[in-house]
C-alpha cells in the first residue's frame, strides 16, 4: 500500500497496539486530538483511553512513567510533542532508562518518538535534531528512518527491542515522503541501507538528509556516487560504513544536526581510525553550524545543509 511517512508511523503504532496488549501510548494531546501532527489520529477511537493516554505537560513524568510501566512488563511508546522537548525528560531517559540494565539487570523496553528536524520555520524550539545526545549516553538505541517503509519497520523493531529506543521521525518528511509499505507487520534491522550504489564517492547520512543527498547526487551527471542511509545511529553499522569507505575511497558525511559531535563526527572518526589507508581524499562533512535553528526562512536556509551545499562538497571531493 502507498503511505506517507506519517501514515507509515501511524500504521506501525496500530499494528503494535493490535498485536501486543502490552503496548500503550503516552503523550501530550495524542488522544482525542490525535497528536500535534496527527500521527496518532484514530488510535484513541480504535483502542480507547487505556491504550492511548493523554498526559499532563510533563516530559519527566512521561519518560519516568514509561520506565516504570516497562519494568513491570508493558511496552510504552511515548511521543514528545517536538523533539526539542525531550530536554525536559532528559534525566529520566539518560539517568534512569539508559543505565537501568547495566546497574540492575533490568530492561526498560520503551520507545520515545521524537518529531525532529528543521525546514518548517519552527524556530529555535521546534526544529531540533538532538539525536547525538542519546548516542553519547550509554544504554540507549537511536534510529532515524528516511522512508515510509523504514519508518514502519524501524518503529516496530524499536517496540520489540528490549532496550530504550529513541525514534527520530523527521517532521519535514511526514507528508512529503510517500512510498510502498507492506501491509503486514515487519521489523527493519538496525542496520544501514545502501540507497544507490556507486564506487567513486560515498555520501553517508540519515533522515531527511537522505533525500537532500539523493537530489544532489542526481545533479552530478556521470559520477558513480554511492548513498548510504545509516538508519540506525546507535548501534552504528560500522561494517557498512567501513565497507563503503573502502569501496569508494572518498567520503562526504551529511548531518542536519549541529556540526560539533554530531553523528557524522563519529562516522568520520571511525573511518579515519579504521579506513585511513583506503581514502583518496579528506573526509568532508556538511552539517548545520553550531547555532540554534533560526526562525526566518532566509536564515534557516542559510544554516541547514542544502542540496547545493551537498553537491558542492561532492564536486570538491570528486575533483581532489
Amino acid at each position, binding site marked *: 500500500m502507498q503511505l506517507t511517512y506519517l501514515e507509515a508511523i501511524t500504521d506501525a503504532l496500530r499494528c503494535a497496539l493490535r498485536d501486543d496488549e502490552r503496548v*500503550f501510548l503516552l503523550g501530550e494531546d495524542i488522544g482525542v486530538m490525535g497528536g500535534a501532527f496527527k500521527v496518532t489520529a484514530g488510535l484513541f477511537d480504535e483502542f480507547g483511553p*487505556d491504550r492511548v*493516554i493523554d*498526559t*499532563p505537560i*510533563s*516530559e*519527566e*513524568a512521561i*519518560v*519516568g*512513567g*514509561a*520506565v*516504570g*510501566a*516497562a*519494568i*513491570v*512488563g*508493558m511496552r*510504552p511508546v511515548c511521543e514528545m510533542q517536538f523533539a526539542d522537548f525531550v530536554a525536559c525528560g532528559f*534525566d*529520566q531517559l539518560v*539517568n*534512569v532508562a539508559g*543505565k537501568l*540494565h*547495566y*546497574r*540492575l*539487570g*533490568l*530492561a*526498560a*523496553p520503551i520507545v520515545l518518538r521524537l518529531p525532529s528536524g528543521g525546514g518548517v520555520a519552527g524556530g529555535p524550539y521546534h526544529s531540533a535534531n538532538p539525536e547525538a545526545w542519546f548516542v553519547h549516553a*550509554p*544504554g540507549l*538505541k537511536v534510529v532515524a528512518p528516511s522512508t515510509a517503509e523504514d519508518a514502519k519497520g524501524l518503529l516496530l523493531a524499536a517496540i520489540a527491542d*528490549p*532496550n530504550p529506543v529513541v525514534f527520530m521521525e523527521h517532521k519535514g518528511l511526514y507528508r512529503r515522503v510517500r512510498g510502498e509499505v507492506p501491509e503486514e507487520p515487519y521489523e527493519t534491522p538496525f542496520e544501514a541501507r545502501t540507497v544507490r550504489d556507486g564506487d567513486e564517492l560515498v555520501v553517508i547520512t540519515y533522515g531527511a538528509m537522505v533525500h537532500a543527498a539523493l537530489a544532489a547526487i542526481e545533479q552530478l551527471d556521470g559520477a558513480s556516487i554511492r548513498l548510504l542511509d545509516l538508519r540506525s545511529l546507535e548501534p552504528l553499522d560500522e561494517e557498512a560504513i567501513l565497507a563503503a569507505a573502502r569501496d569508494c575511497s572518498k567520503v562526504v558525511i551529511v548531518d542536519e544536526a549541529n556540526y560539533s559531535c554530531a553523528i557524522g563526527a563519529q562516522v568520520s572518526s571511525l573511518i579515519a581510525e579504521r579506513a585511513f589507508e583506503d581514502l583518496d581524499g579528506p573526509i568532508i562533512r556538511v552539517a548545520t553550524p553550531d547555532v540554534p535553528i533560526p526562525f526566518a526562512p532566509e536564515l534557516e536556509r542559510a544554516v541547514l545543509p542544502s542540496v547545493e551545499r551537498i553537491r558542492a562538497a561532492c564536486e570538491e571531493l570528486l575533483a581532489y
Partner: protein
Amino acid sequence: MSTLDETEVAERGAPALEQADRIALFRFMALQRAVEERGLSLYKQGKVPGSFYDGRGQEATCVGATYALDAADTVCPLIRDMGAHLVRGTTPLAILAHYLGRAGGVGRGRDGNVHIGEASRGVVGMTSMLSDMLGVAVGMALAFKLRGERRCALAFFGDGATSVGDWHEAVNFAAVQDVPLVMVLENNGYAYSTPTSAQFKVDPLQRAAAYGIRGVAVDGNDVEAVFEATREARARALAGGGPTLIAAETMRMHGHGSHDDARYVPPELLEYWAARDPLDLQRRRLVELGVDVAAIEAAVTAEVAAAAQAAVAMGAPDPASATTGVYATGEPAVLGRGEAHWSGFCS
C-alpha cells in the same frame, strides 16, 4: 501468599499486628542498624570504596511501610531505607558485599553504597537524582491499573526530593490517573545541610491537598504507626481510591554521608530525637509483652558478623565484565516478587 480481601480488612477495623509481626518489625529495624553499623565500620577500615550513607534513626519508616506490602507490590527505596531491602528479602550478606563492590553483591560492583535494589524481589534501585524514582513508581502503578491488577507501587523520598520539578510532575500525573501508589515522605529535617525550612514553606499535607490527593501525617519513628498508615493507604489504593502521601516525621541522626560531620545540626535537636529512637520505642513494647529482646538482638548481631566475614572474603568483579551488559538482549526480565511477612497476608 494471597492478598487479604480489602473489604474484609475494612470490616475487621484496624488489623491487629500479631506478636510475631511486632517482633519481626523490631528485628528488621535491628538488622538495618546492625548492617549499617557494620558497613560503617568496614568503611572506616578502608574496605568500602567511595563514601558511606546510612539511615540511622529512620529505620521505623522504611521497615514499617515495606512491611505493609504484599509480595506482588513493588517498591522504590531511597538513601535511608536499607530496612526496605531487608524486609523484601535481600540478605545482609548481599548488602554488605554490595557496599564492598564485590561481584556477589547486589550491584555486582556496577553500582554501590545505597544504590541497591534486587529486581527479582520487586525492588528498583535508586539513582542519585532524588525524585527520579517517584516517576518510575507512578509508571508501575499505572501499569497495575491498566491491567486491573490488585497491586500497588510504593516510593520513598526525602524532604529535599520534594523540591525537584519532576517530583511535582510525578505527583500530579499520579493524581490525574488515580493510580494505586503509596508515597512515603521521610521528612528527616535536613537535605544534606539544608534544613527543611529552606526547602519548602508549606506543610507537606497541604501539598497533597493541592494535587487533589490524600495526605496523612505519621510519627516516622513509630514502626507500628507507619505500618498502619501504609496498610491503610495500600488498601485504599487497591480499592481504586488513588494515591496517598504519607508524611513521616523523623530525623537523620548521622550526617548526609560518613564524610559529613553534620556540625550544622543543633545538638539539642539530636538529643530530642535520640530520646525517640525507633528501636527503643519498639523494644519497650516488646519488653512489656515479655519478649526476650536481648536474644533477638544477639541473633541479629551474630548474623551480621557472619555476613560481614563472608562478604569480605568474596571476590572482586572481573575487570573484563566492566563493558558488558549495557544493553539487554532477548525477552527482558520484569520485576519479581518480594517477601511479604505481615500475618494479615498469610491468614
